[in-house]
């Protein structure tokens, strides 16, 4: 029998449609059907100036906007050959890790909810609210932040921001203990997750998995540590790896990542350098408002950047960052004009989704729900 699951199924985390071929309760074949959220962002990018693409990158993955901002900004900065001041890099790292925590909290809450543990959802969204307030404080927006710009970041964080982050970072490890108390040794949780939807390291690599989905199968690979960007090499953190390759292993990896991320946030707070937050590139970076009121050149540059954009030397760059879901890559091609010739987003979820048939075939329908949760997909990023 063919069973249609989705696109409006609550456990598919968006609008994913699965065609399940079933034999009784056993799944024989799984065929993911995607494209329901296709918005043509890659096409739209080609009609925008480089700086106008930044808000579009937020909307690809609505759970980690800053990661996408960062990846796009890094790609264009490499095309331009810009040097980013240390303070901007450290702020980017700190906010990226807060974004990772935010994304993992949504994952943990909804994943547990799918499997039937409702309390965790409420706990996770309580802490997520704190992070969204921090984002609102620093960028003016809770979700679509557009805070990282080409050449630096948009604004200096407001007074009291670092104290608020510190307050959150000090309290958060105890909150992770709360989640773990609810789940890690909970017999229902372990029965639903241990040994379920297992995938070997070879299969995971062959099918293009990345991020916690790959590390849950025992492959020790993290772009932040192995191909560092934005001064991640100056931070100490461990990369959690689990060998089992099942839903529980991926859960453990992500929960440990929460602890590591909060450690990176603490390090960033402790060692935050002083200095400018924007690169010294007047033709690319918008000038300060104060300078515009006193200096003719600043006003001219502002007018030119806003009306004609900035030209980027011809070339191409593939920049990858470790997003909460895996390898997020931006391939940006420039033909020397002020609009990108091509922007392609390498979506970690699109590759991770290809693991789903391998995980589910031969298992029960209920395990499909656990498997979808464990690969942590965001359909906005898959369809773009």
């Amino acid at each position, binding site marked *: 029998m063919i069973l249609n699951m989705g696109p409006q199924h609550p456990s598919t985390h968006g609008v994913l449609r699965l065609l399940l071929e079933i034999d009784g309760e056993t799944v024989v074949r799984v065929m993911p059907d*995607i*494209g329901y959220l*296709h918005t*043509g962002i*890659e*096409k*739209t990018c*080609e*009609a925008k100036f480089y700086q106008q693409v930044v808000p579009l990158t937020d909307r690809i993955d609505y759970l980690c906007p800053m990661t996408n901002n960062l990846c796009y900004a890094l790609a264009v900065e*490499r*095309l331009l*050959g810009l*040097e980013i001041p240390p303070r901007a890099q450290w702020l980017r790292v700190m906010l990226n890790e807060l974004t990772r925590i935010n994304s993992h909290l949504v994952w943990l809450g909804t994943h547990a909810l799918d499997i039937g543990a409702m309390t965790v959802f409420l706990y996770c969204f309580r802490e997520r609210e704190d992070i969204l307030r921090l984002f609102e404080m620093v960028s003016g927006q809770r979700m679509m932040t557009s805070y990282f710009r080409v050449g630096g970041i948009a604004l200096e964080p407001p007074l009291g921001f670092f104290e608020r982050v510190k307050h959150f970072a000090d309290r958060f490890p105890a909150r992770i203990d709360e989640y773990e108390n609810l789940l890690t040794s909970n017999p229902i949780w372990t029965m639903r997750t241990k040994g379920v939807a297992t995938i070997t390291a070879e299969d995971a*690599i*062959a*099918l*293009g998995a*990345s991020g916690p989905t790959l590390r849950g199968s025992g*492959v020790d*690979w993290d772009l932040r540590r*192995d*191909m560092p960007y934005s001064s991640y090499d100056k931070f100490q953190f461990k990369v959690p790896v689990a060998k089992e390759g099942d839903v529980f292993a991926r859960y453990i990896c992500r929960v440990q990542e929460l602890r590591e991320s909060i450690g990176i946030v603490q390090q960033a707070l402790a060692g935050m350098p002083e200095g400018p937050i924007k690169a010294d590139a007047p033709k690319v970076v918008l000038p300060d408002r104060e300078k515009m009121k006193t200096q003719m050149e600043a006003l001219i540059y502002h007018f030119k950047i806003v009306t004609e954009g900035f030209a980027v*030397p011809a*070339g*191409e*760059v*593939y920049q*990858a960052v470790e997003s909460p879901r895996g*390898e997020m*890559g931006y*391939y940006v*091609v420039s033909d020397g004009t002020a609009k990108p*010739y*091509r922007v*392609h987003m*390498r979506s970690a979820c*699109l*590759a991770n*989704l*290809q693991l789903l048939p391998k995980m589910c075939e031969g298992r029960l329908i209920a395990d499909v729900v656990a498997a979808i949760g464990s690969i942590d997909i965001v359909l906005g990023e898959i*369809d*773009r």
Partner: protein
Amino acid sequence: MPLASPITDIEQLKDNPALARLLAWNSAAVEGVKFDREELSIYIARSYIREACAVLRDASPCPFNVFCDVTCVDWYPSEPRFEVIYHLLSIAGKERVRLKVRLGDDSPALESVTSVWPAANFFEREVFDLFGIRFTGHPYLRRIQMPDDWEGHPLRKDYPVEGYR
């Protein structure tokens, strides 16, 4: 950091593990190279792409075992019109390499790499859907993002941004 000009001379780059392996295997497959902004691009002759990928996947000591991405750039109206672009990653060597295949406008097609990496499945379907490049030997070459009855390939440059109305 000022931008260095790209290197396109094969002799200067032949120490790179990916290029060295490909040249040792079949120098006729390599049409050209470009080293720009710390990234190496290798132009592969169209008929060799699947074998070149298989060679790089099994190369030692730096096997490019991870398939990251395949996409396409449309250089309309210049010829050859399409460039199909593969991004490969080596976990052991911590290296990346970009392979490129140039394709002309008339019924663009090349061999699928799904037999080398099953991961290429969705990515090739997406390139087929949005650019109209056919991948021969692909197990299920159907539209993936656009509806099945959609006309045209939206990411081609002669397709208007607002769509046809």
